[in-house]
């Protein structure tokens, strides 16, 4: 009788299966004996513990101390990475820097730390030469907030750039203007930098107190939105509409709980309003995946649902803190109740400049003594 090849394959598989089943059975008997002996030893009030080698070599990469999502370490260099359209992410610094290149020149969002600025400038100039259009100069810098890791390179990047000025602007610019590229920020940023005595070379050169603004650069609309008091009161969100890349700044931080700089006007409820705005401005692709690329202040790129889940986590923590605060609990009592415990392994830190304790303290401090437990924008 003719046997079809698929049947022969099935027969071979069956034969292999029987051999495997025999060995598996033997293994199970051995394992059962081991478990029975272990059970005899443990019976009586102690929950069983996982054996050390229960799964052989660990499949968990983190168990070996390797984190594939950790920021690149070691080379101390800036690496341009094409995000989408005309927009590039400059990877390797302490905070994210975004660059748009095209025929009008270079548009830079945030300038990282002062220490990395020379390397950042070199990579921006290389990017402009290799990927830019007719004009290679840095024309515009925008700061999403006034913190040192976002404005540190302002001086070096600004001085390497230039503005196009004509007509009646020439005189005032020559006499009173700052040479180089325009550095744009919310007016609250300058107010605070002046008050704090920060080196004036790092100050923005152009300010507005708007809630939203739109301009066109390199052939695409660049929308700028100012949430009133998010991480700070000078926060900006920038959307490159055609490239479909949204720079959220520190409103989104994929490495930790967001930094809420209470001394610079930051509040938890303002931050949640800003996060909801980011979610509104982003458009997902099918199945709630992909779509608008969101550049956080720190960490990996995100898309809309990442920010939704991040916002959900922060809202839950905020609601718990408000619930406790309404009961008259002090900050120390709330900290002891660990309202963020369910999320600390992913978002919390126990050391460094922004710990979980700092975050909960900022949330507690900026909530009212007796307010609505459940956050909503209408509050």
């Amino acid at each position: 009788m003719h046997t079809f090849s698929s049947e022969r394959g099935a027969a071979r598989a069956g034969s292999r299966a029987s051999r495997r089943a025999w060995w598996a059975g033997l293994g199970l008997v051995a394992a059962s004996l081991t478990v029975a002996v272990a059970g005899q030893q443990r019976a009586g009030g102690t929950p069983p513990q996982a054996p050390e080698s229960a799964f052989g070599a660990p499949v968990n990469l983190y168990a070996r101390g390797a984190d594939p999502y950790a920021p690149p370490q070691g080379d101390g260099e800036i690496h341009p990475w094409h995000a989408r359209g005309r927009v590039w992410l400059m990877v390797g610094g302490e905070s994210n820097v975004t660059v748009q290149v095209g025929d009008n020149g270079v548009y830079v969002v945030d300038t990282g730390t002062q220490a990395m600025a020379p390397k950042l400038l070199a990579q921006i100039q290389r990017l402009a030469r290799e990927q830019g259009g007719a004009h290679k100069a840095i024309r515009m810098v925008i700061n999403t907030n006034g913190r040192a890791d976002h404005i540190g390179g302002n001086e070096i990047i600004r001085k390497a750039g230039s503005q196009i000025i004509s007509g009646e602007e020439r005189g005032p610019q020559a006499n009173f203007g700052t040479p180089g590229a325009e550095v744009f920020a919310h007016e609250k940023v300058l107010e605070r930098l002046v008050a704090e005595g920060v080196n004036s070379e790092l100050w923005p050169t152009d300010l507005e107190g708007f809630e939203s603004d739109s301009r066109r650069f390199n052939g695409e609309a660049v929308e700028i939105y100012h949430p009133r008091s998010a991480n700070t009161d000078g926060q900006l969100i920038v959307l490159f509409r055609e490239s479909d890349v949204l720079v959220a700044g520190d409103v989104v931080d994929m490495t930790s709980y967001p930094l809420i700089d209470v001394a610079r006007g930051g509040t938890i409820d303002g931050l949640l309003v800003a996060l909801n705005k980011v979610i509104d401005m982003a458009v997902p692709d099918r199945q709630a995946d992909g779509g608008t690329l969101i550049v956080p202040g720190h960490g990996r790129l995100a898309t809309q649902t990442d920010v939704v889940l991040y916002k959900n986590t922060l809202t839950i923590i905020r609601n718990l803190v408000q619930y406790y605060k309404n009961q008259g609990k002090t900050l120390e009592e709330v900290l002891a109740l660990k309202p963020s415990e369910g999320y600390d392994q992913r978002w919390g830190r126990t050391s460094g400049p922004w710990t979980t304790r700092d975050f909960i303290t900022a949330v507690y401090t900026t909530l009212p003594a007796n307010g609505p437990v459940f956050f909503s924008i209408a509050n």
Partner: protein
Amino acid sequence: MPIKSRLLRLAAAVISVAALLAVQLSAQSMITGYWQPLGDQDSHNYAGGPDPGEFPGLPITDAMRKAASTYDENEMMIRELQCRPFSATYGPRTLSTMRLWETLDPVTQRQTKIEMWMAFAAQHRTIWMPDSGQTPPPAWAPHSWQGYSTGRWVGDELWVHTSHLKEHYLQRSQGLILSDRTTMDERMFRYGDILVNIMMISDPAYLSQPFVYSKLYVHLPQGAMDPYPCQAYNHVPMPEGHVPMRLPFYTRVYNRTFMSHGIPLEAARGGEQTMFPEYQDYMKTLPLNPPLEQILEERERQQAEQDAIRQGTGR
């Protein structure tokens, strides 16, 4: 030795080597086609889902338990999450029909990728094989529901590693989160018409041990998949920015299944110790459950208290 004989020997040697190579290549198992999950396997976890707070056998951490205690199933009604499919760590464990197909390099005839499509919510995953020449995404690349999968054949087993996953659920209806640092290793192989997928899910944030799950599928001689256009609707009206959740007092386990079988509620808390058979001996040392009526009354009281706080009449 005559030349003719030497040539014959050489030809025989070449054929033998070719045959050996063919055996090596045929060690790859044919896993393409339509596959139906065997629905009697743990199905209550993936259909309606078990009760909230039913975590036995899951190697979850205290953090996971704490996060789950605030979970409210209306979270799924948040507009932006309504079209969320299952992730690669969850979809293959459910009751969806699965289609697998391969793409071969037209010159070498070697696999460059294997694609997986789950019927529910059109979950589409690509497993990149070594011959694809695909560069893995960097650490700063965005994550997706299906993540980034690479595969290779080890004998007749397909070994797959997946990273770059979005935050999703270990068990959705119970609010058990898997973070975006989750990775998954799989072993897929065939026994005749049965496809086995062993999933080993690791998450440094929420699992103290890898969660290991084996799923069986039976081969379907033919099949078809419906498209899945998704549109968000306002099923549960809620104020803008509102996130459904439960407050801290709402953490009592009121598990009807455990109560009706007299299984100690402590066991429902799960944790790695509940994965092992000897936990049954330990359970005998645990205190008895309170009466079901008492638990249900407590549940109603908690619900009323939370509703009052939501409406601003409680604190």
